[in-house]
């Protein structure tokens, strides 16, 4: 058995005692937190850094006017994929955007695009965390 297989098996054993729904909710709340909960710490750090980098860069590029429910409602659905960072941004900015933010065309704003991509990627990561936890539970049963 190679080192990698041993590590994967160890991860599966750790994931066996975990609740899939909780793993998915944690992954949605903060990118990488679901995998951290499953015991895959280095993978969690990689996911956290990659997704949060895209989200924070997007918010900065859009002058902190990327997250707004009334102005960008379809974009908000994608952004909500990374629940914690989006809710935190909404809480800090209050969801209020000025004239400049209102003038943003969702198809031409790279900041909005970055936050949307980060959110959509985190939906996939949350599904992966759920699937890994469910598989681990199934294997341990």
């Amino acid at each position, binding site marked *: 058995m190679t080192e*990698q297989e041993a*590590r*994967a098996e160890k*991860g599966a054993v750790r994931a066996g005692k975990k609740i899939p729904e909780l793993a998915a909710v944690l992954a949605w709340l903060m990118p990488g937190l679901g995998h951290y909960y499953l015991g*895959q710490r*280095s*993978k969690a750090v*990689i*996911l956290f850094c*990659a*997704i949060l*980098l*895209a989200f924070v*860069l997007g918010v900065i*590029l859009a002058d902190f006017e990327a997250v707004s429910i009334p102005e960008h409602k379809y974009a908000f659905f994608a952004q909500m994929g990374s629940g914690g960072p989006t809710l935190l941004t909404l809480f800090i900015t209050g969801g209020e955007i000025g004239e400049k933010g209102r003038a943003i065309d969702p198809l031409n704003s*790279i900041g909005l*695009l*970055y936050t949307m*991509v*980060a959110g959509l*990627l985190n939906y*996939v*990561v949350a599904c*992966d965390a759920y699937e890994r936890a469910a598989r681990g539970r199934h294997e341990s049963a």
Partner: protein
Amino acid sequence: MKALNVLLFLLICLVVSVVSLAIKHDDPRKILLASLKLFAMIVGGIFLFCVVIQVLQAAI
């Protein structure tokens, strides 16, 4: 401005490749190596595409 747009596009390519390969692999070293390989392929593909377009434009 154009260079910044290209840089931002490449950065989002890198983020997407890292996340998608992190889902596929378990070993973090393998994740980084595979995502760098995929990123290099994307950059190489774009570069080749640009060269082909330039050559075609010159030929026409």
